[in-house]
């Protein structure tokens, strides 16, 4: 049986005295998987990458790459012997080499892996035309990040670590680059761990996502599951797209479960976690969960409206003073002003009933 590609077992990562991440276990089974680690800034995401890269020592636990232990409590394989590449968030190009020379330093690494793109291809793909001859201090930080990425890709690492790879890149370019990079990573089957605080980026890039909160890895799952079935209040709150409202569990026996809310009435769907009938729980209501319907009898007062391009986000007030967000397509002609009434389609059906 093949060993897992990367195993992190009960690892404690130490960023500083106060800041550490305890007892992380995480497995990448197959070569070529992309994992995104998502968490607020300052949680120690970068520390994890640096430790995997061998730049920092592991406090406890173990990291195995391709079946070989590379970090443990009393062993630390030198970073240059790991064949792990990492792109730092800040500019880390060699200042006395120009862009082209910097990129090509990656190509000099001697290992067996195949990589069909040349330095020139990457220059094109990463929109770096025109800066080849420039020196690091003459280019923007976004460009520097891309150069660093190109350099790492060309070094054909076993494992690629990206620290906020798109942080300094314009939004317009970001999505295109995310797509292109993902394609390249997939094409050459490069196992990658990306660290980011942007959940959209994490959900798009990652085959799996890990949520880092409060000094631990809270959840490690596929992006769809993370979004729809966060396993804890903290994760749900961190993803921060909805609100929690108090509901009573009414019915759990059938295929369709049923909850009740004093203002919204019955809410049906599939409970992610089981609760006994009659208990009061907190239900996550995300903006896409409720549908607008002017004809509906269920009407709530609008207390705020934000224009978000594709959508409006309306904030509605319930009788128990809860503020519920609802998406409405922004082409919708009939706009509701503040303090007007806003109809919600009934009966309410939500696929994933996330309750705690």
């Amino acid at each position, binding site marked *: 049986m093949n060993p897992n590609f990367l195993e992190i077992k009960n690892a404690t990562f130490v960023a500083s005295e106060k800041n550490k991440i305890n007892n992380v276990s995480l497995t990448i089974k197959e070569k070529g998987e992309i994992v995104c680690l998502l968490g607020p800034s300052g949680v120690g995401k970068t520390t994890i990458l640096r430790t995997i890269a061998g*730049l920092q020592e592991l406090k406890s636990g173990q990291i195995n790459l391709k079946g070989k232990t590379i970090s443990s409590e009393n*062993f630390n394989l030198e970073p240059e012997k790991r064949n792990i590449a990492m792109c730092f968030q800040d*500019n*880390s190009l060699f*200042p006395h080499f120009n862009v082209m020379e910097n990129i090509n330093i990656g190509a000099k690494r001697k290992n067996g892996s195949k990589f069909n793109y040349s330095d020139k291809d990457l220059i094109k793909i990463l929109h770096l035309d025109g800066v080849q001859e420039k020196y690091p201090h003459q280019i923007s930080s976004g460009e520097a990040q891309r150069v*660093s990425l190109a350099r790492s890709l060309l*070094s054909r690492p076993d494992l690629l670590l990206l620290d906020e790879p798109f942080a300094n890149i314009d939004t317009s370019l970001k999505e295109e680059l995310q797509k292109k990079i993902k394609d390249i990573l997939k094409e050459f089957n490069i196992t990658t761990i990306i660290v980011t605080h942007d959940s959209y980026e994490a959900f798009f890039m990652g085959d799996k996502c890990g949520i880092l909160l409060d000094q631990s890895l809270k959840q490690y799952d596929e992006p769809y599951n993370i979004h729809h079935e966060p396993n804890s209040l903290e994760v749900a709150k961190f993803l921060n797209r909805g609100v929690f409202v108090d509901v009573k569990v009414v019915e759990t026996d059938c295929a369709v479960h049923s909850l009740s809310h004093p203002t919204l009435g019955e809410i049906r769907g599939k409970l992610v976690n089981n609760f006994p009938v009659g208990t009061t729980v907190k239900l996550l209501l995300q903006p896409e969960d409720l549908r607008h319907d002017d004809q509906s009898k269920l009407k709530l007062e609008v207390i705020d409206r934000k224009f978000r391009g594709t959508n409006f986000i309306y904030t509605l007030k319930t009788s128990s003073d809860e503020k519920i967000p609802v998406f409405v397509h922004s082409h919708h002609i009939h706009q509701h002003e503040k303090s007007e009434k806003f109809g919600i389609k009934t009966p309410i059906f939500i696929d994933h009933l996330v309750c705690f």
Partner: protein
Amino acid sequence: MIKRINFWVIFAFLVPLLVAIPIFTVFLSFFDTTGNYLDLLKDTFLLKYLSNSFLILLGVLSLTFIFGVTSAYFVSFYKFPGVNFFKWALILSFAVPAYIYAYSLVAFFENYGTAFSILTYLFGEGDYNKNIPKFDGLIGSMFSISFSLFGYVYVLTRASFVFQSHNLIEVGKNLGLSSYESFFKIILPSARPAIVVGLSLVAMETLSDFGTVDFFSISTLTTAIYNAWISFDDLTTANQLSFVLLFFILLLFILENLSRKGAKYHQNSKGNKPIPKIQLVGGKSILATCFCSILFFCSFVFPVSQMTYWTIKFPKYFQDINFWSLNMNTLLLVFLSSLFLIIFSFMTNYGNRVSKNKLISYLSTFSVSGYALPGIILAVAFITFISWFSDFLSSIFGFNSFKNVFIGSVVGLVIAYFVRFFSLSYNGIKSGYSKINNSIDENAYLLGYSKLKTFSTIHLPYLKTNILLVGVLIALEIIKELPITLILRPFNFETFATKAYSYAAQDLLEAAAFPSLCLIIWASIFILFISKYILSEK
């Protein structure tokens, strides 16, 4: 930390330790016998020694401040006739060691000296001696040391002015300040860290000066330690005096280190445009030109002319000098010392970088204080330590004595210079290193570079300007160095400095002129070689 121990870390630990040994020795060797010097000293000299040191320090600091800051101000902000010349000409003062300046000063102003000859030549026979100003050794020392050291203040202050992010004068004008006000309210305070760094370097050099005060027979703290230790074998007194001196030095050291951080803070690394200089007209322009001319004349032209005059006037002494061997000896010392200093400073810096160990970092900080230890004290400490160590090993392990390998040999000289100038080279390399972000090393490792390869392909090429600069600074110091060379040199071994000293000691300053001139010329060549880096406006 065990995981991190490697070749580099060991270097980072050992080199500063070795450098620190003679410094420790100065103090540790004092817990022995005692003599009667202290009684003598208490009654009569101590206060005088202290006040002499203090007065000289005060005088030199004031003069170097005025010379350095004023010239830097003129040169950085204004255009006036000769500004481009003065910009680099003023750093030539580095080429004239204070003791050679002192020779010139005495020779010129003494009764029937050069000034007398000039007056006689111009106005015929006459009794001019009374009209030629005389000054005592204290003032003489102040001026000699100031003219040879103000360059530190000039270079650092100027760099600080040039690297200001805005045109301070324009900002000042915007705020409605006169140029006089903006100088004192904006420009001067903004350059304060750089000025303090310059002044503390000057102060350290002044306190450790031996050649000049010895020539003028001024007793200072340094000569007191020398006398207590060497003439009176009174180690207790030497110890106590050394602590006083060390206290002074420590103070300066801390001051310098703190200001260095401030100085760094003030320099923004990106996007500096050279400040557009303001054209001076009329009286102001004449004033600026005059000030710089006089400074350049006094600090460089005057001693060089005096030495040249003598060399020409007394050609006989010319023949007595083995010119070739003096050159070879001086260059040999320069080459070996800079080579080893640079290599080991690199390794120590890199080890420090790799290990991030606090102990090692403290040790390096401590070891660089060798620079503040007067050369003459250091040389004697070196001899004492080697002798003790050799005897110790012989008595325990029956080793053959190795004293002769280190005392009175080129090896010993190079090691002593190493201890003395390690600070210069360590800090020089360090300042270059501080510009290399740590993540750059990490990137290199992650791209599969070993530590050695990172060092040779990333650090070395990036720091090559630094290396050149440090190498030349070491060369300058070694060419001028006197007390260590004098005590530790091998048989029949002369450098320009020892030759000049030796003639001065037999009251033949006329003969000292030629080796002095050679020394100045060599030093000037080195200075011109690096002037474009020192004066870089980018």
